[in-house]
């Protein structure tokens, strides 16, 4: 009889200990089943995110109130989210463009011509207002615009040709944004866009860091 009472007492004591541990977990705000699942998920996520490519946008404006914008987007995330949007002209990661928007110019034909040609300078326009230069070098499409007056803008766009190919890989009047992002994610650290004038700087680039440094 005494042995049974002792056994029951031991059982209820260990049960109380477990209950107290559970109570502490709840009081400390630890998500229970979700917490364990989250910890496992976070561990695998941090492993996975090590190889992720991030697209960064940095805008600095020195006039007015001094706006600053820092946007960091994982390329894979952008790819998946854009692929899921079906709204207006953006359908399944492809954006429909009308001929009127490119002033009747066959964008695909031009890009195809650029892609198949050797490295070199394709367009050089020198005017009183600005200098424009379009070139292909080492697998990159390079566009440079230098404004001579009013703020002295300097625009530099550097896009891997593979990305351009992917962008125009859809139908005639479509740009495949998702395909372009997919190819972009396989690229190494890349400077894509740089715009500088008297008051503003815009910088778009791709790397493996999750945050943009100042």
């Amino acid at each position, binding site marked *: 009889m005494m042995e049974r009472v002792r056994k029951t007492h031991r059982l209820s004591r260990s049960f109380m200990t477990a209950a107290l541990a559970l109570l502490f977990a709840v009081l400390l705000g630890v998500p229970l089943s979700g917490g364990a699942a989250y910890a496992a998920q976070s561990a695998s996520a941090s492993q996975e995110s090590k190889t992720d490519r991030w697209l960064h946008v940095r805008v600095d404006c020195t006039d007015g109130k001094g706006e600053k914008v*820092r946007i960091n987007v994982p390329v894979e995330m952008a790819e998946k989210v854009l692929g899921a949007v079906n709204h207006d002209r953006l359908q399944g990661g492809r954006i429909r463009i009308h001929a009127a928007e490119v002033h009747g110019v066959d964008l695909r034909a031009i890009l195809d011509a650029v892609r198949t040609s050797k490295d070199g300078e394709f367009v050089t326009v020198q005017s009183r207002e600005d200098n424009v230069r379009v070139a292909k070098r080492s697998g990159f499409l390079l566009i440079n615009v230098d404004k001579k007056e009013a703020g002295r803008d300097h625009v530099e766009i550097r896009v891997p040709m593979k990305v351009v190919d992917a962008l125009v890989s859809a139908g005639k009047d479509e740009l495949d944004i998702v395909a372009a992002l997919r190819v972009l994610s396989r690229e190494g650290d890349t400077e894509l866009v740089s715009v500088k004038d008297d008051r503003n700087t815009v910088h778009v680039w791709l790397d493996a860091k999750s945050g943009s440094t100042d």
Partner: protein
Amino acid sequence: MLLLSKIALGFGCTVLVAGGYVMRDGVMHISVDEYRPGGDHVHLHLPASLLPMIAHFVPQRDCARALREARDVLPAAKVAVLELHKYPDAEFADIWDGDEHAQIRTRGGKLQIDVESPRENVHLSLPVAALRDFLDELESRAPDN
């Protein structure tokens, strides 16, 4: 005495299990401070699992129009939330406009949206898992056409 302790233990365990279920997704935090005479100061710490329940109890006629308009965007929002799981600690947006500052980031698996200005401060911290359940609930309530 033994009977009493058994009843207490049973009650305690029920409370713990119920509490554990309610807290399974963590806690969401909503904080709004308006810096004007008579401005509101709202600070809420709520179990995040309540969020889908709140969505469930909003009258259908009140949210039908909003859901119809959001129907195209909901799948993308769901995908975004699923992807957020992969980035438990990341900065997504940081914007300064004079004395106003807005941040969107994830910290410890929670989506944090902070807006600070001289007029008001808004802080929202929401477990990503709860957000996913919330969007599932919204999608299930979205009218077909």
